């Protein structure tokens, strides 16, 4: 039985590869080259750097498994970066990691694993998959601090049947200890934090570097007062407090971004509250689940109680308590206790 391990050069996928090898799988390591700068060079920070590929290559050599770097820069550019830019231009807050999982990792890489007759695609995500009478179920990883089930919430049965997340049963400490025990050079490598293609700069610099130069527009208070002028809606996300460029004494938050008019609306913290969200591109792990569920709308946010209803393809999530800083474009994942039941993209908030 063959397993293709997506190796980022980090400790989690290194240990995932080691665990599969230990369990007797015929393992192959692949680093997905997702991004390159305009000059064609590999980035020097974030993921997919030359040194990350080198780390993955050395770990693969240590495990005595074949290893390749595959170029997915075109797929990543069209499927992830293009959408990322479009989202900001339309006043939405993108989640590129979810989009990468959906359009590149768990579609293209999975298809390529098929073509090479690999039974499983393995990643270092902190989440768990169980099978139950031929149906696959997706759960949070056992380490609550590292759980990554949120960015996997768009996975369905066809994909889960072919996936394996070996470190989902471990805590990060256990993963690191195992890497150290196996003598893997990535054992003490710091976790990656940044959006890989944005690197250590901020996303605004990235957008500017991509030639995104949105128009100026007004900043208006919820109460109708014109507070000032902004230099492009891409500089804002819902709930943002810093860097608004207006000072009126009281703390202000971005409450709405309207791409058509270019108006950025700000208000008090009390204006941030959202009672209800509609969700599009909803994907269910197995079959649709409605009623009293838990909803999570940030990668490391808390899951909060909500009532979920489904009507003509439109999923509506009504929160038990008003939620702050829910932004259009963000992923919303639905849970029953620790189990993921589905995920989608926030379309509207009220």
């Amino acid at each position, binding site marked *: 039985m063959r397993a293709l391990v997506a190796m980022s050069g980090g400790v989690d996928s290194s240990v995932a590869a080691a665990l599969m090898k230990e369990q007797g799988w015929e393992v192959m390591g692949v680093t997905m080259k997702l991004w390159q700068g305009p000059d064609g060079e590999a980035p020097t920070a974030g993921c997919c*750097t030359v040194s990350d590929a080198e780390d993955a290559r050395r770990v693969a050599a240590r495990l005595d498994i074949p290893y*390749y770097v595959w170029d997915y820069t075109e797929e990543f550019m069209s499927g992830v970066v293009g959408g990322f830019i479009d989202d900001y231009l339309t006043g939405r807050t993108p989640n590129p990691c979810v989009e990468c999982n959906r359009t590149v990792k768990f579609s293209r890489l999975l298809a390529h694993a098929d073509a*090479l007759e690999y039974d499983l695609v393995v990643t270092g995500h902190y989440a768990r998959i169980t099978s139950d009478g031929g149906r696959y179920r997706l759960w949070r990883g056992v380490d609550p601090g590292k759980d990554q089930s949120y960015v996997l919430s768009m996975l369905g049965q066809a994909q889960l049947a072919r996936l394996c997340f070996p470190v989902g049963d471990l805590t990060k400490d256990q993963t690191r200890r195992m890497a150290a025990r196996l003598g893997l050079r990535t054992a003490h490598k710091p976790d990656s934090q940044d959006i890989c293609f944005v690197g250590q700069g901020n996303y605004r610099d990235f957008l500017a570097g991509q030639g995104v130069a949105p128009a100026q527009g007004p900043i208006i208070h919820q109460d109708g007062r014109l507070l000032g002028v902004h230099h492009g809606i891409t500089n804002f996300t819902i709930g943002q407090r810093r860097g608004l460029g207006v000072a009126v004494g009281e703390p202000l938050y971005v409450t709405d971004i309207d791409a058509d008019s270019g108006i950025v609306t700000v208000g008090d913290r009390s204006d941030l509250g959202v009672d209800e969200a509609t969700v599009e591109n909803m994907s269910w792990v197995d079959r649709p689940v409605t009623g009293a569920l838990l909803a999570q709308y940030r990668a490391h946010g808390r899951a909060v109680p909500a009532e979920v209803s489904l009507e003509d393809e439109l999923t509506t999530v009504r929160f038990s308590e008003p939620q702050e800083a829910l932004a259009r474009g963000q992923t919303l994942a639905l849970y029953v206790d620790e189990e993921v039941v589905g995920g989608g993209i926030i379309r509207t908030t009220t």
Partner: protein
Amino acid sequence: MLYLDHAASSPLRPEAWAAMEPFRHDVYGNPSGSHGVSRRAKNALEDSRDLAASLINAEPGEIVFTGGGSEADNLAIKGRALAGGRLGAIVTSPTEHDAVLGSAEHCRSFGSAVTFAKVTAEGLVDPAEVASHITGDTAVVSIMMGNNETGVRMPVEEVAAAVKDACPGVVLHTDAVQGYVSERVDVDVLGVDLLSLAAHKFGGPKGVGLLYVRSGTPLAPLVHGGGQELGRRSGTHNVMAIVGMAAAMAALEDERAAFRARVMGERDAFEATMAELIPDLVVTGAGAPRMVQTSHVRIPGVRNEMLLVRLDRAGLAASAASACQSGAATVSHVLEAMGMSPALARECLRFSFGWSTAEGEGVCAARLVAGEAGALR
């Protein structure tokens, strides 16, 4: 194991190893010293220089040993651009090796004018067009002998005639790293002033090469120091590797005709069998002169990265021709210059034969490649 990646590197020839072996213990002196231990090393170095020079119809003083083909290309381009204390202009083609293109780009960043002659869809330059780019500032014209990706053989002799006709004093460099493997080189017949070789492409050790520098061609050094190689390349010589390179050149020259016949036979059998089993196969540069050791093909509908994994698993080593620093296959600048779209370039693979290729390997490899490609279609 079928090794069809000789254009990346060839195994060491036994003749090269035999020549290098005494250097394991016995010959360790610095050839620049004055005592007996040094003299032994110096003699070995100069014997190698004499041998290498004679094999390409050069004078010993025209040979500069370098740390490989890339260094030879760098020395040719930068050394010429910087010669005479000015930033001379460079004329080259877009399908050159990255060592030439990178050197030209580096010079450009300091002020050298760099112009590119166009290539046809078959990857050939037009000698008259190359010559048309020459100006009074031109320090070097660089057109490779055989392309390292496609195997297309450039008309270097005609380029030499055209550029010398346009401007008799202009200096012509050729990267013969691949071309020399399958074709005897006579620097006068080629009509070049500078010529790069890399030992490991023809069965010598890695990390050693040479630049032929026609007598009287001014060249600024890149490596300054002790003034070795008549000041053109300082640094203590890698005597063992240089001796191995010269021995590999001699071994190659000894079997020139047999090498060409055997390698071309296997390459042609490979392509014929491939064409039979994959009717829509496209051979790159099929209408152009090609080196006998290279087969660059496109298999429509098959992504090269995927096929390489299957071939690797089946025990066949080939290549997608160019890889970036991270190891990912990149869309080739050579194919791009020939007008191929990135999507088609991703379907191209290079199979390259060499001195250790055995009879029957061509057909055997073609069957294996066609089978694995079929599984991906």
